């Protein structure tokens, strides 16, 4: 599948990673699903990283924020289509922790590598689930 995002929202989520460097940033991607499962992002909603014990290599979004966002998007006929976070001084590839903590199959997980405070590569991965087995697969990221 593919994730489509505007240049403005793409830039915003990358800047978020630069602003929180050397800590991880995180946020929610709100938009719509296409009939084929592809996703279009309308807004990248910034969230606070609640992992204050280890913010340089962990992130956690307060479920209360997720509840608020889910409630708001449901009133606008939109959906939570994915999430984003940064990897300070690490590649834009998913980690074992990312996979273990991922529980939204069908959604996108966008990761930006931030090197020395500057956003480098941004990649998107879709969480897939077959029975009890889940995995990430590379996803086309279209920036318009």
């Amino acid at each position, binding site marked *: 599948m593919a994730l489509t995002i505007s240049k403005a929202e793409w830039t915003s989520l990358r800047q978020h990673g630069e602003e929180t460097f050397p800590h*991880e940033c*995180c946020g*929610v991607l709100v938009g719509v*699903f296409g009939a084929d499962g592809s996703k279009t992002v309308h807004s990248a909603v910034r969230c606070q990283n609640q*992992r204050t014990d*280890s913010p340089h*290599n*962990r*992130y*956690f*979004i307060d*479920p*209360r924020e*997720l*509840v*608020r966002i*889910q*409630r708001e998007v*449901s009133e606008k006929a939109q*959906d*939570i*289509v994915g*999430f984003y*976070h940064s*990897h*300070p001084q*690490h*590649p834009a*590839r*998913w*980690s*074992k*922790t*990312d*996979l*273990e*903590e*991922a*529980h*939204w*199959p*069908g*959604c996108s*997980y966008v990761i930006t590598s931030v090197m020395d405070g500057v956003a480098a590569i941004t990649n998107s991965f879709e969480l897939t*689930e077959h029975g009890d087995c889940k995995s990430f697969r590379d996803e086309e990221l279209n920036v318009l």
Partner: protein
Amino acid sequence: MRVLIPTPLRQYADKQASLDVSGGSVAEALGELTSRYPELRKQLFSDDGRLRKFVNVYVNDEDIRYLQNESTQVKPGDTLSIIPSVAGGCSELKEIA
């Protein structure tokens, strides 16, 4: 009472984003939900019948863990939100081929 179904669980609930259930407690509401959509049960509950650790349930803005868990009383007009957790981090990176 309205129940908001998160994106990944809608495939088990006839693709609905929200639906109405009755019941005077969270347990009764979730019971009605999972009896209507049995495939949801395995997604929400582990084999021992407890809510999975990564599944958060909120009544309006309150986490039921800080109320009376599944015994929390609910009333018409309340909104029950089911929210899987969102977390991760860059340590223990997957090896890049």
